[in-house]
């Protein structure tokens, strides 16, 4: 088996991994290896041909592929070692990576630091308990996107979409443009799951109806989907039988949530936060295993790619600090608690010596106006007024000094602003 050493190994060549590898190189890491399982860099962005990427970072609306290409070009110009079509089989707590590809076979890399950037996967029909038959024509939105945008094939002609997350909305528009009749988007919750701009641009502009508090209760069809039964949900999320309705279609597209892909992390013994389903991170985006960092959707599912790239850069800075012995791994952590109306926060813990820390969070419920408050041992250290907050939109803020007191972040409702 080939055995090599590297300063920093980044696992995953999507937006988080690309940003992390570039930043690590810029910060002076001599040998950076970027491992990607697909045949090209860019990750899921390669199948995102719609626009809206990079508004924060580049001040313009790029397509996913354009956004990725900005980073890919820089990476290819650098001396970062790129390993494509390569799968990581194991990561050990002492930062040994076992990976393989067809050209080099099996190899092991002893890494000074590792940045995990494996992204996420989609929830499936079974995971959201869709009952009935199991014919062809039930696909996740990401798979449909891949088939249509990358492979050039349509998986049906009359589609029902379950889930109003951004991917569901984007695919409603995309399928319509490809000549598939999109009969409606059904959302089990009573609020849409996607960004407002996508609701407007992908549904309203194409007259695609959105049905809230409604779900698919049954799939019908032996070989191919023939119909789905939908029903309204009561307050306890139970289907109201009287409202059941059969909709003839040949495609059920599921956009019912994303789950960070942490199988490698789990096997390395990394602690996972049940709220984010990603590793518990500290202010440097280091996981519970020293020297192993996480960035992008493997850490927490982000809403905007700009934040994904940012998280990669934070992790790269952390990995460099670790390499340079600037992180005192024995320094005790201070937990960051989630208070009123906060569903999760990343990082989940900080070290008192931390300088500026960037936090990412989501709220539980929508408010027109609210006050973001961060307290240290009950004393307010940061207040920020926020407008139109909603669970689909991630919020971010910086804290210049975390201190040694327990932190709590809450989003308080404000009657007037």
């Amino acid at each position: 088996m080939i055995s090599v050493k590297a300063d920093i190994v980044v696992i995953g060549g999507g937006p988080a991994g690309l940003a992390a590898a570039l930043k690590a190189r810029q910060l002076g890491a001599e040998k950076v290896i970027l491992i990607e399982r697909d045949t090209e860099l860019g990750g899921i962005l390669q199948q995102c041909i719609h626009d809206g990427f990079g508004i924060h970072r580049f001040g313009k609306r790029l397509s996913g592929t354009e956004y990725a290409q900005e980073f890919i070009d820089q990476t290819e110009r650098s001396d970062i070692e790129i390993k494509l079509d390569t799968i990581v089989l194991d990561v050990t707590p002492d930062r040994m990576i076992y990976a393989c590809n067809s050209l080099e076979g099996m190899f092991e890399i002893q890494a000074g630091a590792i940045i995990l950037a494996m992204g996420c996967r989609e929830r499936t029909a079974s995971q959201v308990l869709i009952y009935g038959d199991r014919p062809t024509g039930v696909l996740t939105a990401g798979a449909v996107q891949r088939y249509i945008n990358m492979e050039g094939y349509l998986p049906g002609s009359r589609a029902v979409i379950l889930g109003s997350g951004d991917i569901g909305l984007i695919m409603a528009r995309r399928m319509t443009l490809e000549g598939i009749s999109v009969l409606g988007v059904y959302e089990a919750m009573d609020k849409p799951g996607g960004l407002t701009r996508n609701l407007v641009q992908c549904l309203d502009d194409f007259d695609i109806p959105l049905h809230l508090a409604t779900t698919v209760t049954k799939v019908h069809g032996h070989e191919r989907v023939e119909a789905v039964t939908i029903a309204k949900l009561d307050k306890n999320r139970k289907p109201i039988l009287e409202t059941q309705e059969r909709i003839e279609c040949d495609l059920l597209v599921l956009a019912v949530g994303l789950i960070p892909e942490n199988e490698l992390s789990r096997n390395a013994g990394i602690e996972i936060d049940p709220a984010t389903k990603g590793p518990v991170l500290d202010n440097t985006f280091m996981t519970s295993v020293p020297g192993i960092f996480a960035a992008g959707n493997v850490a927490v599912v982000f809403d905007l790619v700009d934040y994904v790239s940012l998280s990669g850069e934070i992790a790269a800075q952390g990995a460099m600090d670790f390499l340079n012995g600037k992180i005192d791994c024995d320094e005790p952590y201070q937990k960051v608690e989630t208070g009123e109306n906060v569903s999760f926060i990343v990082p989940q813990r900080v070290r008192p010596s931390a300088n500026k820390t960037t936090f990412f969070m989501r709220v539980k419920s929508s408010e027109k106006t609210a006050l973001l408050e961060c307290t240290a041992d009950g004393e307010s250290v940061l207040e920020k007024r926020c407008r139109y907050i909603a669970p689909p939109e991630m919020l971010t803020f910086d804290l210049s000094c975390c201190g040694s007191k327990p932190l709590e972040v809450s989003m308080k409702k404000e009657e007037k602003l």
Partner: protein
Amino acid sequence: MDIESINKIKKTLKKNFPDVELKMDSDERGILTLKGECRDWDQVVQIGHLVAKQKGVKNVVNKLRVPGLDIPCKDYSDYIAMGNKLGVVDDVDVVIIGAGISGCGIARELAKYKMNILVVEMSDDVATGATKANNGNIHPGHAAKPGTLKAKLNVEGNRMYTKWAEDLGFELQRCGAMGFVTSNLLKPALKVAYNQAVKNGVDGAALIDGKTACQIEPGLVKNGLGKAVKQAFWLPTMGLVEPFQVAVALAENAASNGVRFWFNCTVADVITESGKVSGVVTNKGIIKAKYVINCAGVYADEVSAMAGDECYTIHPRKGVIAILDKAKAPEYGALCEHVTMETIKLTLKNKKSQTKGGGMCRTPEGNVLMGPSAKEVPDKEDLATDSESLGYAMGRGDNGIQYSDIIRFFVGSRPADYKEDFVIEMSPISDGVINVGGIQSPGLASAPAIAKMVEGIVAQHAQDNGRPIEKKTDWQPIRKRKPQFRQLSHEEQGELIKKNPSYGKVICRCECITEGEILDAIHSSVIPCSVDAIKRRTRAGMGRCQGGFCQPRVLELLARECGKEWTDINLNKEGSNILVKSNRPVASVKEAKK
């Protein structure tokens, strides 16, 4: 049957179902045919069961109907027309109908002989019925009613699995099974179970004390039951397999010994001439045959009727099984090293149901399985899941198992007859037709013994008819297992990639399945033509993302290797193509080639 017995049965029925008017016909074998109207489907099944239990009844043909309930019935007329139009397309010694575990096992066994054997399967692959949808237990044989064919073949079949696994290269884990009681009062129940196991001839069955139980099964201590277990019933021969792997292994071995498989081929009629079978009519033409072996699963009764021998009715009993994420197996401590049966207390409580439900076990690959449930349904093609059945399979939530750990749930349909026993015999009405019907649990465990028994029936019949069958000199019983990348050490993985670089390319990331393994499957002796067929052979798509990432890759490989268009690749059956049309017509594979 004599009038006296019939009247007795009528009386029993009147007593139990006073409102039901029914007509009963019988033949000299003791086959009772029921006609009439019932209140609901459950009543139809209850009456069938009650009649089957009566003295002198060999089996029940249940034609009871429910007013207003549409019982879907397969219409074979189109297939017959297609077959007749094509005429005779083949002439063989043996046609085996159905490529489930029974059909594949029999094919492999008969492949020893100098016979031309053809397996016809209505679906797209082997193991698409009950064989693929069960929990893979190789039962020891303790549960079957003593004296039944089930009991005999289960115990024999269990024994034979060790050799099968060795010869055919599939994974068999003899984990053993344990039932235990936590109260001395329940010890007699264990004794009853033990006595039955002894009566059935189960190897190694033993009653053991709590201490010994904890030594064998450390999970008991881990679950805080260390001191509570008073006595246990230990069955060391319990085994676990991936059932579809067994069927694939059997089919591939049979095929390399000359057996042919036709998929998407539905038998629509059985041709008999003066009480002797001469062939079958299928949608792919007429196949002449000396023997027709009916392993048609839920359709076995219909095939038998086609041969003019309506001698049993299959009443499908569907069951939901849920597969949980492998990663969660260690968390669910109740899932111990061995398959731990429910405590006897629970077993007794559930005794009313026809088959066990709500159990938990694991697969050789380490997934946790919950279920199955059990529900009688009129429609043989009803494989729909529902929340009630899933709830039953999951144990009604009092076991701490989270729904969020489910990666897939599905339905299997047990092909049960009313005797709830196997029907394996040469038809006395249509000579040459061998029924292998009613093969529900423990059909998987019994499969080797079923195959042997059918081999015996064919050999004896051939002998009796003055044309004894001869063994081949070049029969090859061994099927070498193909490399399984995920199970190798990193060094071995490296060596494998050196030999063949396609093993260095992981296609299914959840289960770690390589392109090499998928190519091995595609280029095997029984060619898989659908994405699900690849899944059953390699596990690609069986993981937590359920093919979300690897399905396009598998589809691409299938299209490339089989020289097909992407839009021709099915999920499973004919007509289940995943992609409907190209949205870049110019870029289609064929065009690109031009």
